[in-house]
């Protein structure tokens, strides 16, 4: 054994011991829903608060939406916002992994809670064909508010002044299409919602971008708006594709605002309709009980 054999071994060991290590830091992962979560409503989960502690780094995101820790429901995404249907009736965990350009991953699971307080009951109204109503209850420090919405599209008996669908199944689903002048004077206790009322409902349903879906989704705590279409000439147009719901807000003497939803869109929007058009109606009311 000569020193010439030992020295290369020694050098190799020193080199191996001093080699440079890759970045060891994983990114900071954060996320929160952009709106309060509700069962089966679409919500946008926002991880844009996540960041890398390294300069000039980029991040990728993937989500465990059902919180089962088994599979990732999304692949690695370059954008931090993902829109999903909230899968939990009351609460559940949703997971996020954030990966930086070195491949280091931070994983974060957070519980999300729903906070729906509602009941469905028969509405006692002046209308001959009754409808159901859904009461959303909210508690504030000074009062208790009950926000009441018709749970069905308003149905009226046959008349030449409005349109009823030919089958009873269609009538039950779509209700009656009425002109604005009829919609605005249907009942004393329940009023035609204003744009502001609908806007509050849109906000409750996740904002304009998602309310179109959430207003239609078939879950008990949603309004479950349908798409009866609109009647401007003789027969309804866009049946099954769009729904137009009157507001009490007039644009001018000839036209008024209506809420439009579409079967193939998540968005909700306000449109101007001629008052003679026949559209759908949901009534609403609200009352508050103040604490003394």
């Amino acid at each position, binding site marked *: *054994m*000569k*020193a010439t*054999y*030992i020295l290369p*071994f*020694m050098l*190799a*060991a*020193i*080199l*191996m*011991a*001093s*080699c*440079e*290590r890759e970045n*060891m*830091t*994983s*990114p*900071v*992962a*954060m996320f*929160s*829903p952009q709106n*309060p*979560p509700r069962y089966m409503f679409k919500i946008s989960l926002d991880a844009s*608060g996540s*960041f890398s*502690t390294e300069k000039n780094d980029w991040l990728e995101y993937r989500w465990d939406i059902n919180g089962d820790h088994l599979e990732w429901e999304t692949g690695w995404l370059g954008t931090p916002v993902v829109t999903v249907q909230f899968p939990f009736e009351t*609460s559940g965990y949703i997971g996020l992994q954030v990966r930086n350009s070195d491949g*280091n*991953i*931070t*994983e*974060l699971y*957070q*519980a*999300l*809670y*729903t*906070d729906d307080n509602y009941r469905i009951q028969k509405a006692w109204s002046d209308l001959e064909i009754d409808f159901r109503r859904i009461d959303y209850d909210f508690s504030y420090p000074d009062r208790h508010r009950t926000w009441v919405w018709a749970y069905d599209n308003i149905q009226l008996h046959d008349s030449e002044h409005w349109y009823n669908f030919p089958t009873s199944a269609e009538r039950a689903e779509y209700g009656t299409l009425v002109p604005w002048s009829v919609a605005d004077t249907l009942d004393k206790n329940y009023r035609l919602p204003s744009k502001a009322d609908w806007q509050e409902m849109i906000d409750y349903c996740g904002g304009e971008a998602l309310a179109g879906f959430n207003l239609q989704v078939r879950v008990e705590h949603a309004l479950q708006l349908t798409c009866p279409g609109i009647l401007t000439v003789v027969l309804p147009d866009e049946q099954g594709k769009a729904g137009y719901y009157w507001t009490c807000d007039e644009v001018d003497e000839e036209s008024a605002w209506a809420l439009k939803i579409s079967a193939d869109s998540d968005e909700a929007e306000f449109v101007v309709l001629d008052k003679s058009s026949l559209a759908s109606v949901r009534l609403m009311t609200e009352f508050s009980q103040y604490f003394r």
Partner: protein
Amino acid sequence: MALLISVSALWSQEKGSILFTGSYAYMPEYRMQGAGYTVSYQHNLKPWLSLETGAGYTLASRTIERNQTLNNVTLLDLNYHHAAYSLYAAPVLKAGNGRVVSVDLFAGPVITWQSNVFDMNRYEMPESPAYTGRMTDIVYVNRVLEGTFFGGIAGCRVNVRTGENWRVNFGISATGIIKAVSSVSAIIGVRYCW
């Protein structure tokens, strides 16, 4: 002179020795620092060649202080921890054997069992909305590197005779471990010879 030569010849006929060394260890890959000890046995084959086998234990750590808040997130300190048991065998080339001061050069294979925990992130989340819940506000990410690994060790020792059977030694060594934590060490120890 005759006495010195005869005593040197006697010392050079030592059959073996036991070494106990303490070490300061530095892991350059992860910048961890720590300490360890090694017990080894050296069997002399020739006046200039021995075989050495030994076992050691090393502990090391590192703290990366952060204590800063970015985007309402408090970044907490990161810690690295290292523990290792090692076995090695190495031929030893000896220079100046039998003299008061001698030098050992050694190099050979190592098998080690290591446990390493590296904090990759630790941070405190800001307050969450009412409909969001967490088990804890501290998010902790680490990487665990644990198992049996192979590598090599090489080093040199300077031995100073302090008595008929005793020597003290000091030196340096480098331990390269494949796919795990390597280190360089400064060592000091005592040796009992017979």
